[in-house]
């Protein structure tokens, strides 16, 4: 049955992988696209990137971090449950071309989002370097999968518990200093990471794409909640994006808009803990 949860499991401390039945989405999803889902009738509509799609099984895979109330709610579903709503694929797919050397940078749960893009760039014959980073070893997800598509794979942890100690942006700076022929940098991760990536690549004049995780409601262009300033124009992440030229993004505005509901988020998470009988 469409929208049914096939499996859900823990990838790391607060990151989960969920496989959902969806005939329509699995048939059309391409790297870079996302979907919007509601866990139950009271839920928010939340956008999540599609990590992979299986046309034969008619399933799609999502990897998400239990960061706020809505993602925690999604994290509580069990196989057999049926999501209340699931619509997609949405947004433009990544434009995949043979460019030569491409560097992909993934931070946190953004690693899950760069994997399908890295694979697609590799599949058309690019030389693919992947840099991933997280606070600790546990957060470096999809290591095995990415290793199969990356010509060069650099792992970074903030605490040095795996790979090199440091940030993805440290590795990127070094790479760009020594490799002058990088044609594209593609980054997904926390806004601050993407902003730093943009700052570095601007110096080296390397074209850079970022996939923006904005707030959304409908996800089909109808509400404008996801609007971002790109250059001097208002663009909607849902229908014009989610990928944009990193050097054109108004990062400060994105950070502001993304924190519109922090008070409500804290409130509902506190309520949630109370309901579960956990002392906050």
């Amino acid at each position, binding site marked *: 049955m469409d929208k049914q949860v096939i499996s859900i499991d823990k990838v790391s401390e607060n990151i989960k992988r969920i496989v959902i039945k969806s005939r329509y989405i699995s048939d059309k999803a391409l790297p870079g696209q996302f979907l919007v889902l509601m866990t139950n009738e009271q839920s*928010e509509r939340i956008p999540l990137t599609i990590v992979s799609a299986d046309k034969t099984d008619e399933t799609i895979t999502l990897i998400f971090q239990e960061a706020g109330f809505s993602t925690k709610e999604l994290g509580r579903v069990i196989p057999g449950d049926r999501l209340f709503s699931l*619509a997609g694929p949405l947004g433009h797919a990544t434009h995949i071309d043979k460019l030569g050397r491409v560097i992909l940078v993934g931070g946190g749960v953004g690693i899950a989002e760069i994997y399908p893009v890295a694979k697609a760039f590799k599949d058309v014959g690019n030389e693919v370097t992947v840099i991933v980073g997280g606070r600790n070893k546990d957060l470096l997800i999809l290591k095995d999968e990415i290793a199969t598509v990356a010509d060069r794979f650099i792992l970074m942890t903030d605490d040095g518990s795996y790979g090199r100690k440091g940030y993805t942006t440290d590795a990127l700076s070094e790479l760009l200093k020594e490799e002058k022929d990088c044609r594209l940098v593609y980054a997904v991760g926390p806004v601050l990471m993407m902003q730093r990536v943009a700052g570095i690549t601007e110096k080296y004049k390397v074209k850079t794409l970022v996939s923006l995780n904005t707030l959304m409601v409908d996800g089909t262009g109808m509400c404008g909640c996801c609007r971002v300033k790109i250059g001097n124009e208002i663009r909607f992440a849902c229908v014009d994006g989610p990928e944009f030229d990193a050097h054109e993004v108004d990062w400060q505005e994105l950070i502001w*808009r993304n924190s519109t509901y922090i008070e409500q988020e804290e409130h509902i998470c506190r309520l949630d803990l109370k309901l579960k009988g956990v002392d906050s």
Partner: protein
Amino acid sequence: MDRKLPVKWAELSSQERVMSFDEVSLGYTEEQVLKEAARCLQCEDPQCSKGCPVGIDIKSFIYHVTQREYNKAYNIIRARNDFPSICGRVCPSEYQCRKSCILTKKNSPFADEKAINIHLIERFVGDYGRKNKIPKNIKVTEKYKNKKVAVIGSGPAGLCAAGELASSGVKVVIFEALHKPGGVLVYGIPPFRLPRDVLAHEIKTLQALGVEIKTDIVAGRAVLLDEFFADGFDAVFLGLGAGIPGFLGVPGENLANIYSANEFLTRVNLMSAHKFPEYRTPINVGRHVVIVGGGNTAMDAARTAVRIQKSKGYEINVKIVYRRTEKELPARRFEIGHAYEEGIIFKFLTLPAEFEGLDGRVSKIKCLECRLGEPDESGRMRPEKIPGSEFIMPCDTAVIAVGLGANKVLTSVTPSIKTDRWGDIIIDPNTMATSVKNVFAGGDIVGGEGTVIEAMGMAKRAAVSILRSFDDK
């Protein structure tokens, strides 16, 4: 009784209504509707029907109401309009049937107060049919039983096209992008104007005619146009609606807590943000709300904001900023009246110039005063800025309700569908046929922003053409 004046209908008091999202206008009782219907002059050459986008035989249904033959009245309306309970509530009748009523003076911009309250009589009859479960008088023929039509979008145009086609025995499947059917009727129009049980009933009535509704399907992404035909549909009707909200293009417009009217209304109407945290979608409504625009959507947003302020225990403080004067407000006159009654303040001849913020959240709005100059291409006087007239108002929530552009999700991946420079689908206005064979369109995606009943008028024309195309084969 003074027969020259219309029978007054009941409404919730302004104190009562701001406490809830309950319907404001209570419509006519039977006694009242009989009196109002008796005011109709039953003109030899009635003009009212000419003002109705779907050409309801108004004179005749009003006559049957005077005879208390509500069943007959209901079927006369249903012959032209499948949704009398909806249209009786949301039609801007003062610009349509009531403006054409003989009791309105010629060349008035909108209906005279004396004009027959056709919409309220229609609403009474529609509600009577709904409460008494009067079936639609249809003759389903076997002729179209093997025909299948895909209707894209479940707003007024889509619902109407589906109803017309299903009534003729065509198998109809509606594909809706959101998780609930109804389009603008569910995400846009607030329940205090259109109660959700009314909408739910009308949708159930459609399903009873055999219409299947599939939600969560974004046409152009999940299903491409060609695939509908490959899946066995004989024709496709595009009722995509007006999609993309417009913004002002002034500095500071992307600060947090500045909403498009679509977002603001969707959060409340579709996602129940006013019931947070029981419903998980949040909304921020502060103490100083400014709505920009003068249409029905602006009124809906303002009145929604008032209700949320009230529920939070705030003083009501909602301003509508409009660059022309009260006379040019495009909203329904009833809604403007309701907005005033609910304590909303209108700032006419005022143009927003900039939003200012504090920590990324809007805190002030800078405006300019305007005066009316020469008429523009729409025939309305063009507002001109008065230099040096800047003033600042506190504003912690802003809603931009300045119109919508076409949603290009489907058309951008379907170049064979010809669109105009605004992105609206180009159609033959007689048949509603698009540039692609067996694909028809209607509603806001072909005409910019129209009314519910105009969308339905187009959908009916499209349905007729679709049936005719089946006959021709």
